[in-house]
């Protein structure tokens, strides 16, 4: 299946777009969706909080994007589209953004959303937002009408609307009364199609249809994180089930209707079943290896290139992706707007042991122990570590694996000693584009111990690039730099499988399991 990937991926893209278009026309347009029922979605992890703006965790986003909405949202093709906003007027100097709000939008507590709520929400985001640096250019937020808010920026920021619409830790709109509350202390009231009923950690999150939900009639159906959202289910229950085997058994028994992630072998087995529909969501994430560039052998550039030269990406990705993968050397998904093309291709997937030996000699490496740290939470991380260790050992690098729980790994990675190499998966950042991707590599954290001035400069240039072409050029240079300095090594892309009971209709896989415009066929 590997040689055919080059062909299959564009086909998949076409298929995905076609399904998306179909999905846009189906709900609302076609009669046949039925109201009612309780849909149960299984996911592995507890949401750290349901305070939508305060977390960038996938486990939270899956749920909070049903409760809250943003002024602008990302479309299926990752472009900002209006959601709670009617639109935005940007001044010629690019310093003033005037958002007009939709009227008649109600919060779950019955109150109508006004400009005062929006201002309060944005102010709170600047205080507690999980990615509040995205709003760093904002100088002031003013209420300029009952349904009008004006943002003034301190400097021209061409990518501001993209940052403002980013769903990683979304700038969600909450009632003004909640604005002073600390993280997690809000009333969890939003404007979304479902409202929160209860959250029992380690058990479930229960949402119920918001009867007064104001559907955005400008759209025909879901479009990415936005669009028209029709809550057909009476209730949506997100059940927390850490064990993948138990999730699959529950799906087969019909106790769970949606698995937002299912192992590829299980997915392949169930693909033939009449009761279950299996969906491919490809690409889902990057697999990467991150160096400690501050201390140990990884501080030497030649050593880092030796690791790059030694690795056989095909072997790692076949095992990480369980067969659903793409040997993509790019720091963006293939075929996306900012696809940087072939830059660095010649240094990817080499497993060139002669070159590795030469680089190791040049780096003065004398068999010191190289500690590869990985966490127990992610199968992908463990698999990456195990296969990379075998390959690097065969290439003469004395790698040992140290496995810890996730908090310990995150803590360890803040320190220069005790680790030299670590595994990682980047899902959302590359999906949301080059700015998000490079943003994770800037500054001192979270990826690297010390800021890399070259990356920081490239990031500033990218964020301020006036046109798409200029930004594409900058990102090409960023990719060239990553394949020259190797602070982080791209291993490949993998896809995930999702599964639904076949009576769940209208479901289209995306970055979150969307439970609106989806219904039970009775």
């Amino acid at each position, binding site marked *: 299946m590997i040689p055919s990937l080059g062909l299959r991926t564009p086909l998949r893209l076409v298929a995905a777009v076609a399904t998306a278009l179909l999905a846009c026309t189906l709900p609302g347009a076609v009669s046949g969706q039925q109201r009612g029922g309780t849909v149960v979605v299984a996911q592995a992890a507890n949401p750290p909080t349901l305070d939508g703006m305060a977390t960038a965790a996938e486990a939270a986003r899956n749920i909070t994007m049903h409760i809250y909405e943003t002024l602008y949202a990302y479309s299926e093709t990752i472009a900002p589209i209006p959601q709670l906003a009617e639109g935005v007027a940007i001044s010629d100097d690019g310093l003033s953004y005037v958002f007009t709000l939709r009227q008649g939008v109600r919060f779950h507590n019955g109150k109508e959303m006004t400009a005062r709520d929006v201002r309060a929400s944005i102010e709170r985001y600047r205080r507690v937002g999980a990615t509040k640096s995205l709003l760093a250019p904002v100088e002031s937020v003013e209420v300029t009408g009952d349904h009008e808010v004006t943002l003034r920026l301190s400097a021209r920021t061409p990518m501001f609307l993209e940052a403002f619409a980013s769903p990683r830790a979304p700038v969600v709109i909450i009632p003004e009364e909640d604005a002073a509350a600390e993280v997690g202390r809000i009333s969890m009231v939003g404007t979304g199609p479902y409202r929160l009923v209860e959250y029992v950690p380690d058990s479930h999150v229960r949402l119920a249809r918001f009867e007064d939900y104001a559907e955005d009639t400008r759209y025909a159906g879901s479009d990415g994180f936005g669009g028209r959202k029709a809550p057909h289910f009476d209730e949506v229950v997100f059940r927390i089930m850490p064990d993948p085997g138990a999730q699959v058994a529950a799906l087969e028994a019909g106790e769970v209707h949606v698995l937002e992630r299912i*192992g590829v072998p299980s997915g392949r087995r169930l693909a033939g079943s009449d009761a279950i529909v299996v969906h491919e969501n490809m690409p889902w994430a990057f697999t990467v290896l991150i160096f400690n560039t501050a201390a140990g052998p990884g501080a030497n550039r030649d050593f880092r290139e030796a690791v790059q030269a030694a690795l056989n990406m095909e072997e790692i990705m076949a095992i990480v992706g369980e*067969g659903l993968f793409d040997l993509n050397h790019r720091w963006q998904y293939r075929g996306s707007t900012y696809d940087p093309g072939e830059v660095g291709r010649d240094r990817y997937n080499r497993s060139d042991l002669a070159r590795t030996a030469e680089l190791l000699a040049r780096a003065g490496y004398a068999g010191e122990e190289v500690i590869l740290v990985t966490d127990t939470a992610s199968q992908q991380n463990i698999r990456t570590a195990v*296969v990379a260790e075998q390959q690097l050992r065969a290439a003469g690098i004395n790698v040992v694996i*140290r496995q810890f729980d996730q908090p310990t790994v995150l803590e360890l990675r803040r320190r220069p000693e005790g680790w030299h190499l670590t595994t990682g998966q980047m899902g959302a950042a590359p999906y949301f584009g080059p700015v998000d991707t490079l943003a994770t590599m800037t500054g001192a954290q979270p990826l690297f111990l010390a800021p890399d001035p070259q990356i920081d400069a490239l990031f500033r240039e990218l964020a301020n690039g006036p046109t798409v072409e200029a930004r594409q050029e900058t990102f090409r240079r960023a990719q060239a730099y990553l394949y020259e300095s190797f602070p982080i090594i791209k291993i490949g892309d993998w896809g995930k499988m999702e599964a639904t009971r076949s009576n769940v209709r209208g479901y289209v896989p995306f970055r979150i399991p969307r439970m609106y415009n989806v219904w039970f066929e009775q």
Partner: protein
Amino acid sequence: MAAEAAPAPLSLAAEIARARRRRRAAFLRRLFGHPSFLIGFVILAAFAATALLADRIAPYAPTKIDYRAILAPPSAAHWFGTDGFGRDILSRILHGTRVSLTIGLWVVAMVGVFGTLLGTLASYVRWLDGLIMRGLDGLMAFPGVLLAIALAAALGPSETNAIIALTVTFTPRTARIVRASVLVVQGMQYIEAAHAVGAGHGRIVFRYILANALSPLIVQLTFVFAVSIIAEAILSFLGVGPPPPAPSLGNIIADGRSYIQEAWWIAVFPGIVIAVAVLGLNLMGDGLRDVLDPRQRVERGGH
């Protein structure tokens, strides 16, 4: 007379040695004549032999990855199939038994030493009794495996830490058993006699007390060995045993958990191996108990 007298002590010594040999032979005959001990012994010997010979008999290296043979079902090339990395399950089990056996033996040795030391000290040195036993009671307040998991998780995943965690967990019960049997033996008249003829503490403890308090300890240690193999599997299953890619029976089962329906062979084969090994050890322990415990022997003879 003098010429005749000289060989007398010699022949007496030879007589004692002969008697000892006879006793030992009779003991071994009784032991191996006990069916459950024999079955257990054969199973355990097979387990130990595979562990020792893993390098020679395993068809593949246990960490050899083959991404073209991921999750291959049992076949001529891979008798027990392969896992998600394309690694041969049979080879991993064979090497995994080595980890189990190593950890089991270390734990038995350490528990034997510390259990005996603490148990004997507590009963022989009266003023230490309260101190030691209350400390051990504190450890015993935790459910055994839970304590081992907590310790292994706190110390970090490695083979040595698993041994330490299991030793700390199993020492209190062993010490308690040693203390109880030493207390019984201590009250015997021959100990008093030994004191009376001026035997030193060392001689009394090792020659008279421990030698006579040994049988419950041996039964307890076979039990510790069996439980360590299970506990090691539990620790590895939870990811706090020896770190990957080292195979251990527990982490092979953990790997297979997510594929239980698609690739049952990953979890089932090591599961069978654990079950059989533990069965063997329990049978052996039962046999030992029957043979070593004179009271039961008498009861059996009586009926």
